[in-house]
């Protein structure tokens, strides 16, 4: 299991494609309203899945923990949304916090963790 995070538009998927064996058909683009497809290997925009969890009142890391056995070969790509102003909107505030909790779970469970900054990846675990 691999976690790759960083700010928006930093080249996280490109970094993953350069460093791991990924086919286009391996990529699952997460959205607010779709369930995860565990037959795919790479979950891109995972923060969008988490926003969907907020809207449905589900804890994203519980969803992951319940499906832990399917996650060993997965690469999670998540936008780090933790460094701006606290959002005025209640839902966005809850999103920001749930992304944080989920990233803590993912970084603990992952064999390796990378942060991508301006296209350059740095391994932090």
């Amino acid at each position, binding site marked *: 299991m691999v976690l790759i995070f960083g700010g928006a*538009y930093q080249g996280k998927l490109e970094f993953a494609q350069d460093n791991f064996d990924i086919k286009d058909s391996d990529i699952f683009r997460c959205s607010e309203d779709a369930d995860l497809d565990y037959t795919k290997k790479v979950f891109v925009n995972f923060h969008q899945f988490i926003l969907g969890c907020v809207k449905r009142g589900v804890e994203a890391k519980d969803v992951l923990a319940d499906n832990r056995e399917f996650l060993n070969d997965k690469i999670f790509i998540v936008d780090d949304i933790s460094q701006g102003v606290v*959002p005025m909107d209640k839902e*966005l505030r809850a999103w920001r916090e749930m992304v944080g909790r989920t990233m803590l779970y993912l970084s603990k469970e992952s064999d390796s963790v990378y942060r991508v900054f301006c296209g350059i990846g740095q391994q932090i675990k």
Partner: protein
Amino acid sequence: MNYFISGGCKNGKSYYAQQVARDTAREKGLPLYYLATMIPTDEEDRARIRRHLAERDGWGFETVEQGTDICSCLEGTTVDGNPVNPSGVFLLDSVTALLQNEMFKTDGTIDLGAADKLEKELTEFAKKTGNTVFVSDYIYSDAFIYEDFTEEYRRGLAQLDKALAKICDQVVEVAYGFISEYK
């Protein structure tokens, strides 16, 4: 040697960038230029410029003003009227302001091709000078859903940051005065 420096707002990027530029100029015996990129539109901007000028006082910078078409300053003059030497050391603060000037025009129009244009110009600028310190702003980690133009601006700035991080010899993130070297 070209440098790319980014990080959050008010984290000490400019101060660090000033030191890098000054030390490079001293070491190589080159003229030292501050490339002022902000086009002032009101008293708040003018006050900010005065504050920045005071902060740079005594550092040995000659100021060059260029808000758009950045490469043309290499054939221009400093605010004191001296011709600019393209082999000097340039502190370009900031990439963020340049994209703002190129994308959101003073006549109210928006140029969606601004990031592509600037990517070419900044790449050319880095090549021509060889001793530029580029400063940008890391605006990619907040929990907010922006309207289209702001999102396009964020995407465009990230495009420039990635291009500069690729071609620069050194890439640094400044976080509250702490330095992380990526390259």
